[in-house]
C-alpha cells in the first residue's frame, strides 16, 4: 500500500484516480488542483507517490515536478495528462518522472504504472 498525492485541476480525473487506487489498497493522502498546492501538500503529507497533471492554471505540472525534485530528487512521480506533445513528455522524462499516462486511461494502465513505480 502506498500513500498517494493526486494532482489534477479536474475533480472528475481526481475522483477516477482516487477510486481506482483506493479499491486497490492505496491511501490517498491529498488532492491538489494546481502545482503550487501540490508542492505545499508534498511537504506536508510526504507521499510515496504523486500522480501529476501537466496543464493547470496556477502552476503547471512541469514546474511543480521541478520544484518537488528540488525537495527530494528521489520523489516518485507519474504524469497523468491529456497532453500528447512529445516535447513535454520528453521534458517530464528528462526531469525523472517514472511514467507518462495519457488521459483518458484504463484502470489497468494506471495500476500497472503505480505498481512499477513502487
Amino acid at each position, binding site marked *: 500500500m502506498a500513500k498517494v498525492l493526486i494532482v489534477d485541476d479536474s475533480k*472528475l480525473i481526481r475522483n477516477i484516480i482516487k477510486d481506482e487506487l483506493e479499491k486497490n489498497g492505496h491511501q490517498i493522502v491529498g488532492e491538489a488542483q494546481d502545482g503550487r498546492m501540490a508542492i505545499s501538500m508534498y511537504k506536508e503529507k510526504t507521499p510515496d507517490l504523486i500522480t501529476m497533471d501537466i*496543464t493547470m492554471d496556477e502552476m503547471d505540472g512541469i514546474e511543480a515536478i521541478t520544484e518537488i525534485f528540488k525537495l527530494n530528487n528521489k520523489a516518485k512521480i507519474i504524469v497523468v495528462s*491529456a497532453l500528447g506533445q512529445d516535447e513535454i513528455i520528453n521534458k517530464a522524462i528528462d526531469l525523472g518522472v517514472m511514467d507518462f499516462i495519457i*488521459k483518458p*486511461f484504463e484502470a489497468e494502465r494506471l495500476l500497472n504504472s503505480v505498481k512499477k513505480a513502487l
Partner: protein
Amino acid sequence: MNQEVVTVGIGEYTVAQSPMILRTILGSCVAVILYDKINRIGGLAHVYLPSGKEYETNRESTITSHKFADILLPLMVEAILKENGNKRFFSAYLVGGASLFNTKPSSFMDIGKKNLDAVRRILNDMRINFLELEIGGNNGRKVHFYLKNGDIEVINLK
C-alpha cells in the same frame, strides 16, 4: 469570466470554449463529451439514435436531422477542429444509454445499448480514446460539462 450555461437538446451537439458549461438530460440517449484540454475547447453531443444510415435504408427517407450517432459525432469533431481544437489532445467520455423500459440488455428494443455500441464503434473508427463514466442502468441522468478544466458532473435521476 463568462460562465454561461448552454443546454444541449436531443439529437444536437454544441461546441464551446472555457469557461462555458454545457448541460444535457439523458435517458436512453448517450452524451459524447470531447475535450481538448490544451486549447480548452470541447463539445457535447446528445446521441438520440445509433445510425442514420440504417434508418435511411429501412425507411427509404432522406436524413435531415443530426440526431444519429454516425452523423452527429463526425460533425462535432469537425466543428471542434474548425475552432482550432486538436484531435491528438482529445479526451472523450461517454455517459447515459439507460434502458428505461425494463427491456433485457440483449433486447432489440434496448436503444440505450444500441446507442452505446454505435458510439463506441464510431469513436474507435475515428481513433479517439474514450472512457465510459456512467452508462447503462435504468435511470435518466443530468450531465454538466465544465470547459474550464474538463470536469463532468453526472446526477442520477430517480
